[in-house]
């Protein structure tokens, strides 16, 4: 899990997807994670639009980092992010009207997604455009993967479908657990997945510790 890469571009992307995954590790930007993960196609739509906004705003903020005065940086970031969100909102309304309908108010709410302002503040205003682009790609993909995992669990177990395609039909043996696609299901699935990640990290950290001890003993 704590692997590092030689190439800084790839390392930054890997950092966003695994080491500092916004949803499972940093637990920020949770509103869309809980709200739009009822179906896998909603999750992909939300993930990709957030990724697009994140990459563009990271690059612009990194490019302007010496120009924006420190005192007004927050309002400046908000305007930059809001501009890209509005563009994204129009594009989705024009080209993917169905997705636009089902995501509803959560598209304009990308503006207040903590991931975007958080990365602007923590990464883009200190790093080059090239690395900020990598950070946007990594964080965006990490967020999309997290949304896809949560929504797949909810949609498959809760509705018996995946991307709207029926996978199994209700039988005496197993019927879809309907509560998982309702609002309590969002909290339940998230809780179980984060707990599973904690357990996995715990086990892998312990293993790494043992390996290190072994290496010291052998030398």
């Amino acid at each position, binding site marked *: 899990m704590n692997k590092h890469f030689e190439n800084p571009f790839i390392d930054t992307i890997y950092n966003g997807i695994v080491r500092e995954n916004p949803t499972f590790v940093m*637990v920020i*930007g949770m509103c869309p994670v809980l709200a739009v993960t009822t179906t896998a196609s909603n999750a992909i739509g939300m993930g990709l639009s957030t990724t697009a906004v994140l990459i563009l705003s990271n690059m612009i903020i990194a490019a302007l980092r010496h120009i924006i005065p420190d005192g007004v940086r927050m*309002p400046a970031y908000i305007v930059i992010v809001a501009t890209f969100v509005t563009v994204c909102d129009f594009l989705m309304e024009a080209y993917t009207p169905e997705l636009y309908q089902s995501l509803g108010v959560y598209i304009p709410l990308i503006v207040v997604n903590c991931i975007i302002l958080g990365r602007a503040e923590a990464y883009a205003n200190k790093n080059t455009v090239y690395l900020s682009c990598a950070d946007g790609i990594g964080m965006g993909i990490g967020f999309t993967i997290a949304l896809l995992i949560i929504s797949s669990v909810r949609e498959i177990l809760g509705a018996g479908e995946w991307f709207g395609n029926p996978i199994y039909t209700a039988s005496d043996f197993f019927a879809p657990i309907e509560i998982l696609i309702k609002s309590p299901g969002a909290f339940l699935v998230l809780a179980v997945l984060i707990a*599973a990640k*904690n357990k996995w990290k*715990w086990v892998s950290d312990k293993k790494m510790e043992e390996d290190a001890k072994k290496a010291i003993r052998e030398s």
Partner: protein
Amino acid sequence: MQGLIIIIITAALLDNVVLSQFLGICSFLGVSTKTEVALGMGGAVVFVITIASAVASLLYDFVLAPLSLGYLDTIVFILVIAALVQVVEMFFKKSIPSLYNALGIYLPLITTNCAVLGVALNNVTYGYNFIESVLCGLGTAVGYLVAIVMLAAIRERCEGCEYLESFKGVPMVCICAALMSIAFFGFSGLNI
């Protein structure tokens, strides 16, 4: 009159902002460690959401809509909310220092609380007039206050309990929130 009461009850209980619309989750999970802290945050949110929905509604009806600039609503609302939070903070500091000391640290956090922007945008989508917008804002904010105080109270009770190591922290809070969300389903039985 009846319609207005229905708007408040729907916004506060039936369509609870945190438990069924999932807005403002960050502060809901983050600032719910102690009941007093949760009360402070909830109070600040009630104040800001009510004023923000009033201002946003006036701005939309008298500036954006007549100039057919409705598509700028996201940008304008978020800037107005950010400015408003600043103004409210300065006003409290100057004239009601006791309230400022109680809410102080929570006020700046509210700018990025998506419940505020969410309510303002929802009011536009539903086509609410000024009074309906303010009441919807108030109802939503009261729903937030109720939910965050309840969650904080449950978390205080959970502190001494024993459960699986891997569920420590966020997962346990999510389980509590899920149970509260199930309880709030009961309100959908209200016949209005």
